């Protein structure tokens, strides 16, 4: 029983990590149909922000908190730059953006290698986040995972508020639903695109800060997580926050439960099979925007 509870907790927290990574992707994917393969490298940028910051600020707790907004800004700025320099020219060719951003991701990885060195770097987590909350002797909830869960929840809430209740959000949604119509309605789609990219990439930076608590910080850290995040977005449905949230937690739980009873490899393969099966049922993902216009 304890085992099932702690596995569920693990599953939910895997889901939270997936969600944190997928949120930004979902936004940019949904907005522009842009598959940003460099998203993983924005995560990496967020993680390195913590590393650099800790050279200046020694207190682990403060440095992590301060890193959150800075990582958001750093990764967001990289996203805007990417949008401005390349993606802007490729909106008509979504598949080509996939390849172009893959190229960008290679360059960013190598740049990280040249700047920070090929080996993983070390960051310090505040003591409060390396401990855990003991429920029973066997059941403990680790603080770093609780923190990430909270962070993911916060990100979802913040993003929902922005999309629902601000004029920027209304514009973003308008552009998602009908770019041409939005443009003729006087919405500066170019600026909206850039802002969307800023927020989406910024969220990757935040995810990067969170990942320093869990895993390695190195040039290839982004590639480890990006495919799973894409699957979340695809299965969740383009441009649907709700879909990403549900699918992320479903996948996380599924993964952790299969993993427990079989092996990590088998779990990965089965999760993939599950997604193909799911897309058979809902080829456009869990939620879809339905319009009458022809493809």
């Amino acid at each position: 029983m304890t085992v099932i509870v702690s596995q569920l907790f693990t599953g939910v927290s895997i889901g939270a990590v997936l969600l944190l990574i997928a949120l930004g992707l979902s936004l940019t994917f949904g907005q522009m149909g842009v598959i940003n393969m460099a998203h993983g490298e924005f995560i990496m940028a967020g993680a390195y922000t913590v590393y650099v910051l800790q050279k200046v600020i020694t207190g682990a707790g403060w440095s992590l908190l301060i890193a959150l907004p800075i990582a958001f800004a750093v990764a967001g700025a990289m996203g805007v730059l990417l949008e401005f320099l390349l993606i802007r020219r490729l909106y008509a060719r979504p598949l080509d953006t996939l390849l172009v951003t893959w190229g960008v991701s290679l360059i960013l990885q190598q740049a990280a290698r040249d700047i920070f060195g090929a080996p993983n770097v070390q960051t310090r987590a505040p003591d409060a986040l390396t401990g855990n909350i003991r429920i029973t002797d066997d059941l403990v909830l680790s603080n770093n995972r609780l923190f990430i869960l909270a962070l993911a929840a916060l990100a979802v809430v913040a993003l929902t508020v922005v999309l629902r209740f601000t004029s920027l959000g209304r514009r973003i949604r308008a552009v998602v639903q009908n770019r041409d119509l939005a443009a003729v309605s006087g919405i500066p789609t170019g600026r909206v695109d850039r802002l969307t990219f800023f927020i989406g990439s910024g969220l990757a930076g935040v995810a990067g800060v969170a990942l320093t608590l869990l895993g390695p910080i190195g040039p290839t850290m982004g590639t480890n997580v990006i495919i799973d995040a894409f699957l979340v977005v695809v299965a969740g449905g383009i441009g649907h926050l709700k879909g990403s949230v549900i699918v992320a937690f479903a996948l996380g739980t599924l993964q952790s439960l299969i993993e427990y009873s079989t092996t990590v490899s088998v779990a990965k393969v089965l999760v993939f099979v599950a997604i193909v099966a799911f897309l058979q049922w809902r080829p456009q993902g869990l939620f879809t925007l339905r319009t009458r216009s022809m493809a």
Partner: protein
Amino acid sequence: MYSLRGRRTGALLIAVALALTACGSKTGENESSSSGAVADTSGDTVKVGLLNSLSGTMAISEVTVRDSIKLAVEEINASGGVLGKKLEPISEDGASDWPTFAEKAEKLIKEDRVAAVFGCWTSASRKAVKPVFEENKALLFYPVQYEGLEQSPYIFYTGATTNQQIVPGLDYLKSQGKTSVYLVGSDYVFPRTANKIIKAYAAANGMTILGEDYAPLGSTEFGTIVNKVKASKASAVFNTLNGDSNVAFFKEYKSAGLTAATMPVVSVSIAEEEVKSIGTQYLADQLTAWNYYQTTPGAANEKFVKAYKAKYGADKPTSDPMEAAYVSVYLWKAMVEKAGSFEVAKVKAASDGVTFEAPEGTVTIDGATQHIYKTARIGKVGGDGLITEVWNSGSPVKPDPYLKGYAWATGLS
């Protein structure tokens, strides 16, 4: 249009004809079909090959090995070279890709005509180049601890085989009364083979194995595995994870409330360099099994550490695979000098009993297995990021890649 088509058909016909007429020897038909590439030793210099991943995922580890090989080559050149000839290192990038390793090995042997090649890290890259070296009758010096069960006539193994690292690690756990063990490893040859050996050892030594889990290489999600480890209430964990996974594993381990005091982890792939990237916050007091640490006492090591730091930076630690790579160049030099020739057959013949005062202590080549006698050392990670020895085997352990000297190991290979 028609003339073009005609020409094309003609070309195809030629191809078929060539393929049919140019058939070479059948397998087993002609023993001397390949005489092997001969090293070019005609000039003032002799080329040696350095084959390491300088890009890709393995670059993290392999660049340091390349650096220490270069250090050895420079030192040897500064002291007059080998048989009066200076060494000319040719460095190739295996790019963390096994077919590329095979390709570059072939290039070093056939195009550059090097006298010996130093390098490779993963078992997969070694398996990929092994046929190349055997086919061309060229020498490879492999500097990393590995899973044993191999003995190629053209490879010298200067890292530990299982009875010089894993078995001592288990002996140490047993001596500490840690008799229930959980096995965690990356999903590839070394951990799987190591764990096979561990299970055989456990069966014969009254240890129980409470579980065995593998994570794909590069996997960074250890929630489930750590849950399983915790639930098993093992007295120790034997860790054969590699690379990035270690970082995630130890972060998870600590946040689950597991510590070195309650459930120590013995790692066989975490050296000083990895400690640096994981952080002592997570690793303090955990155990490692190697043959060399930066802190290993002795004049030879002091000299090595000092030279390495002088060349590559004071913050660069030295580690076991780096030391084994460094030593491999000196061992080759000693073999060549004993043989009085660069010729592979003669060098091989001269290998048995060649010794070198290495940073890890005296090492001796066992000609029969082409492995070396090494001292086993258990270390503990300190707060300063260095590893200090807590136990050693006293004298160099004879290499036994097939574990023939261990009764419990019969049937393993």
